[in-house]
């Protein structure tokens, strides 16, 4: 028994020592101080030039996101027009019909997601604009980065303002939750901010980049977009002077209209701005553009949505080569040698987003490599023509307009004769017509017609109503959350 008692004492002592050791171990300062794993805390970011570069890169990357180039962009910017139809099989993604026949409500997913998608770009830009100024780095590069962010912010606000009218204008990321709920700004204020950003961007951005920086916003992109923004506000003198500036910057029309839209001719002499995409070998997540996939030939190169309409097919003048270059017909053989089977569910597909079948790599989105053309020189020429005509200068208008037609002709003197009318109305209509065929299936037509004031005339038969359908509804969830601070567009229910 004695022995046991000794043992007891010894064991107790041992246990107590052990216990206290363990207690100490677990209470050691920092045991509960665990940093996030595999995620860089934001307070460690925004320190170096490299951080600034990465942050600016992210802005460009997001421009190819689903919300920016796929279903939601199509629903908001294309489906309502007379040039495009829903596509795919009749029973597939029928929500598009609400955009086709103008019954879309504020609850439609695409109404919300296109909105959110643009603000996602804007948030990335605002973070750059908020944080880069304090970074110690090459000042010239810093200024350029700021200008690049302003360009993309302006581009995103332009897409927002023409889609929704009065939108929330966020020019910095919120400091705390008191800055979450902001009221809308009227269209004029939003346009003024867009023009301010573009003016400031154009002052800094270079006219061109070395090969390693191709794809970044240029001076031409900023001025060209500014011209388009002015066009939507009928500031004809601005449009004319801005487009004249561009026309003196070395841009030109790419000789072959069909080839202009192929991957190998991306960022050509005609290009002012393109959303860059690529098929990054081994990295499907970085090859995430679905721009081409959602419009690709159904079952072979994609899903077959946003198909050219019969009305578009009929809009081309006789033998206009742009018809064959814009529309992939069921049963046709493409210049790249692909045969479109006769069993596909649609008569026509968008050829401007077309990528040859043999480029498909399984595990990747079909056509992940296709850039989304935002602004090209042909558009600049047509804006120049329109503004010149509005300002009474039909000579310059005809020169610019016919330059576009001449390229489309592709050397065939028997087609697409030069336009010669000088009557302001007739010439205006000729420019409108040229825009329809030259820029077909490039997400331009729908808002272009509305801007021309012809919404009822052109889309009325599809159900478009004046004083309502000039814009889409503000997303219901945004209004709900604002507690009534946000105001719905006329004609729409919350």
């Amino acid at each position, binding site marked *: 028994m004695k022995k*046991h008692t000794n*043992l007891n004492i010894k064991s*107790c002592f041992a246990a107590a020592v052990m216990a206290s050791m363990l*207690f100490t171990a*677990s209470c050691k300062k920092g045991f*509960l101080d*665990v940093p*996030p794993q*595999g*995620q*860089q*805390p*934001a307070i460690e*970011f925004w320190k170096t030039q490299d951080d600034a570069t*990465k*942050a600016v890169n992210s*802005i*460009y*990357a997001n421009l*190819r*996101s689903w919300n920016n180039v796929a279903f939601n962009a199509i629903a908001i910017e294309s489906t309502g027009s007379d040039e495009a139809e829903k596509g*795919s*099989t*009749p*029973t*597939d993604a029928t929500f598009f*019909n609400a955009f086709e026949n103008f019954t879309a409500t504020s*609850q439609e*997913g695409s109404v919300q*997601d296109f909105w959110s998608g643009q*603000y*996602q*770009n*804007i*948030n990335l830009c605002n973070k*750059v604009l908020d944080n880069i100024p304090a970074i110690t780095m090459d000042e010239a590069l810093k200024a350029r980065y700021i200008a690049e962010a302003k360009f993309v912010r302006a581009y995103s606000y332009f897409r927002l303002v023409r889609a929704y009218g009065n939108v*929330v204008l*966020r020019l910095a990321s919120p400091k*705390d939750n008191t800055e*979450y709920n902001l009221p809308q700004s009227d269209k004029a204020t939003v346009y003024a901010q867009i023009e301010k950003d573009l003016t400031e961007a154009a002052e800094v951005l270079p006219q061109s*980049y070395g090969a*390693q*920086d191709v*794809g*970044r916003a240029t001076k031409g992109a900023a001025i060209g977009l500014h011209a388009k923004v002015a066009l939507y506000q009928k500031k004809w003198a601005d449009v004319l002077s801005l487009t004249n500036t561009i026309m003196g910057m070395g841009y030109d029309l790419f000789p072959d209209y069909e080839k202009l839209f192929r991957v190998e001719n991306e960022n050509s002499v005609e290009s002012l701005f393109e959303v*860059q995409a*690529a098929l*990054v070998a*081994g*990295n499907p997540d*970085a090859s*995430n553009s679905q721009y081409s996939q959602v419009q690709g030939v*159904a*079952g072979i190169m994609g899903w*077959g949505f946003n198909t050219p309409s019969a009305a578009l097919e009929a809009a081309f003048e006789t033998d206009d080569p742009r018809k064959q270059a814009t529309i992939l017909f069921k049963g046709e053989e493409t210049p790249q040698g692909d045969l479109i*089977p006769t*069993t596909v*569910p649609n008569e026509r597909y968008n050829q401007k987003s077309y990528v040859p079948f043999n480029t498909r790599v*399984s595990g990747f989105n079909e056509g992940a490599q296709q850039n989304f053309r935002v602004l090209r020189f042909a558009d600049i020429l047509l804006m120049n023509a329109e503004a010149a005509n509005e300002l009474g200068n039909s000579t310059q208008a005809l020169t610019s307009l016919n330059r576009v037609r001449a390229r489309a002709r592709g050397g065939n003197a028997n087609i697409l004769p030069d336009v010669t009318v000088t009557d302001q109305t007739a010439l205006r209509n000729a420019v409108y017509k040229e825009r329809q065929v030259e820029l077909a299936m490039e997400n331009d037509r729908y808002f272009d017609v509305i801007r021309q004031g012809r919404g009822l005339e052109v889309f009325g038969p599809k159900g478009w109503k004046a004083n309502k359908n000039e814009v889409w509804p503000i997303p219901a969830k945004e209004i709900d959350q604002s507690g009534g601070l946000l105001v719905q567009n006329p004609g729409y229910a*919350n």
Partner: protein
Amino acid sequence: MKRIFTKFSVLAFLCFLFTNVAFAQNVTIKGKVTDGGDNTPIPSVSIRVKGTTTGAQTDANGNYSISAAANATLVFTYIGYTTQEIPANNRTTINVALASSAQNLEQVVVVGYGTQRKLDVTGAVASVKGEDIGKQASQNAVSALQGKVAGVSIANSGTPGASPTITIRGTGTIYGNTAVLYVVDGVWYDDINFLNPADIANISILKDASAQSIYGIRAANGVVLVTTNRGKKGDPVINYNGSVGFQKVTNAVEMANATEYATAVNESYAILGQAPLFANTNLGKGTDWYDVILRDAMVTNHQLSVSGGAEKSTYNLSLGYLDQDGIVKRNNYKRYTARLSHDFQIFEPLKIGYNVTGTSSKSKDAPSSIFRALYAASPVIPVFKEDGSYGDPNDFSLGNGSNVNPQATLDFWNQTTSKYNFTGNIYAELKFLKNFTFKTSIGGDMGQEEVLGYIPVYRASASQLSTNSQLDVDRIETRNWIIENTLTFDKKWDDHSLTVLAGQTAQRRKSYTINAQTRDVPFTTDGDLYLKLGNASKSTITDLGSLATFASYFGRVNYSFKNRYLLNASIRRDGASQFFGGGNLWGNFPSVGAGWVISNEDFMKDQKIFSNLKLRGSWGKVGNANVPLNPTTRVIDQSAGLIAIIGGLPQTGANERTIVPPSLVWEKSTGTDIGLEMGFMDNRLSVEADYFSRKTEDAIFEIPVFGSLGTANSVILANQADIKNSGFELAATWSDQTESGFKYSISGNIGINNNKVLNVSSGSNPIDKGGATITSGYLSTRTVINRPIGNFFGYEVEGIYQTDAEALPFNKKAGDFKYRDLNGDGVVSPADRTFLGNPNPKYTYGINTNFAYKNFDLTIDIQGVADVDVFNANLSNRFGNENFTKDFFNNRWTGAGTSNSYPSANLAGNMNNAPNSFYIESGSYVRLRNMQLGYTLPTAITSKWKMQRLRVFANAQNAINLFGYKGFSPEVGGAPTNAGVDGNVYPLYATYNLGVNLTF
């Protein structure tokens, strides 16, 4: 019965007095231990000479022999039976009939950090014996609990190797993981699928907050304590259990055949103003894809254990092997388990021991999308064409919804998942100064999961092809450890009994995942499946990880007076690393419970109604640290989607695209429980009733924020809501035996739960979630104040528009759903949506029976849920020309007057696929969960074969399922706010087994 107890206590008391002074010559005492109920011998009963370390064990026939002083007291212990102490009083033969503890109050239940007499428990704790778990065909112990415990709801997944979802007393959290905490022999786990059900001795389910709160940090979703088998002193006992059987799909949904499909597709095209897709709809039956891809699947199970022990050490070794085919062809799951436990009484006051479990499993996985593919695949597609190539959906212009040949999906799918798990703990327990016990335990859990997938180059059709071979390798490792130290003071004096516990724990949980992928890997043998054999320029590698640490202190006092008045109180203080930086690192979790054993009162002595009557009440607070890690830290997103293409090359992009709450506090839940335990007719009938109410405060989850903030997901995480679960539970057992030896027990249990959201920080703004992708892009649930979490939300179907004229004003067509204009504004708009159903089951119940007569035994378990709804999203989840169910085809609207409940074949159009009341169906079911008939061969025969026991049995699980739901299984499960949305569940199947239990 009561009188017997009194006698026992007096005897026990006497021997307690005598043993200390006893000193006498040793004699050999022999005897037989039998079940007090049916007089069957009980093997492996532990017999100890009180006050010494001498022990023995009964053999298979219940016989024992032990050397003890003539005036010694023998202590007989066996799980599930009341411990008896019997003074030898110079006898050399002592036969003992042990009372099954199910029938009395002396039953010991496992509670947090210890055991308690059932009598002393003041909270709601349910126990399930290992043998009840072992008697099921379930390969996962949790699955075997279904229907056994009131208030515990279990949804099985069906996938071989996958764990079921368990919900204890309703859903109390929204965002966080709803997984309960499993504590296996003192080590904490999120999942116990590494455990062979046959290794389990006992499962305790801590249902109320006072019982749970000692596990504060992780207890909010409930705690399941698992005790595994350990060795007992005596000769080695060898057990073999084996079974073989098959699994067969039950309650399959019949799909439209080719002719019916073509008819319906043409109808939908006509409605949309399109030319018919099929010129000829007379296409016969076509392909039944379920028939092509599913099969009757074999399952084999072997389990071998050896246990025993010498004077100062005991051991238990168990090996298990499971080979289960999935009902999808080629799907197979194999699991090997080994468990070893060893306990040593080194010196009288010091005991040490360890147990280790190694589990290895290998699954040839079923293609992840196969069930959706089977549902959607068109029956007009042949499996193979006449030329032997795969049937091609593109030949039929079917478009996106139905462009897959499931046979090709299956044939070119090659993925294996191997899991290795090594876990265990080592402990030392020291008794000192008479009343103190110090215990220290270190546990660890090492897990490794390896997923290897290979896609060869193939071309089944233009839409199903692989242009490059692809190799995917995933490695997921978990490394967790836990250290626990507890000090217990235990003292009984006069009428008082006091136990005081103080403890401390520290734990660390780490997981790390690495995924790598490459292309152009040649394949001739498995030896080629290496990343380095791929194309280096097409390889990617990425990883992610998580790390959390916890530090905790706790204490508890249990006091009882005269076995009548009970008081328990505990407190736990937890620190969790995920709250670091938010300033709310620590949380305090107290509890208190009291009980009154009325039947032990003097004034109850003469009454005859109650053999037991106890009233108990408790209150406690628990926490839920099962929330995202570091939620208040702003982090940088550097995902692949932010890689810019500049100069034609990928350039790393990074930016901030989330908003975080400024601070976050612990999600806490406070619960009250009032229980009444009653025994009648000598406890042949026992009844336990509980009322409970549990309120979750500051529930952490995401709520939507303005899209105009431009964050990646338009959500913010914060303490957003208060949720209440309240209800009633009733469990009753009747057990008896007739004079002829027919022994039976019938138990029933029912749990009633009401789930209600009390408050959300978004105020009157609803939280819309649920479905989305599988509910045609619409959100299908809404969580608002005064309603359950995740109510189904959508339009109310009033009928079907019979004519275009009637439908046109609403932008609809004949055959479309006619939604009720609830706000009466003349148009149907989203403002007309309403609450359509509740995915949280109100009633869960089970009936469990055991019958034994002579050598036969029969177990029948019935289980069900009632008053619950399911969203049949498979019906409406359409991208085009998916197949239809036969039920839909037969009942669809085809013209005025044909149907006022089923719409036309244009199911995906005109908002017919928006969430609406048509898709909400009752999820109630009742099933014959388990049925087992066993026959134990007479000892006369088995002893000749040198066996102690041989039992053969036949078992059926899920043999009969009754439900009205039109999908495959109403057992849908799902995370809160997304629960009950049936996108694609594993078809229900029944398992039929034949097996043996053998003891040497």
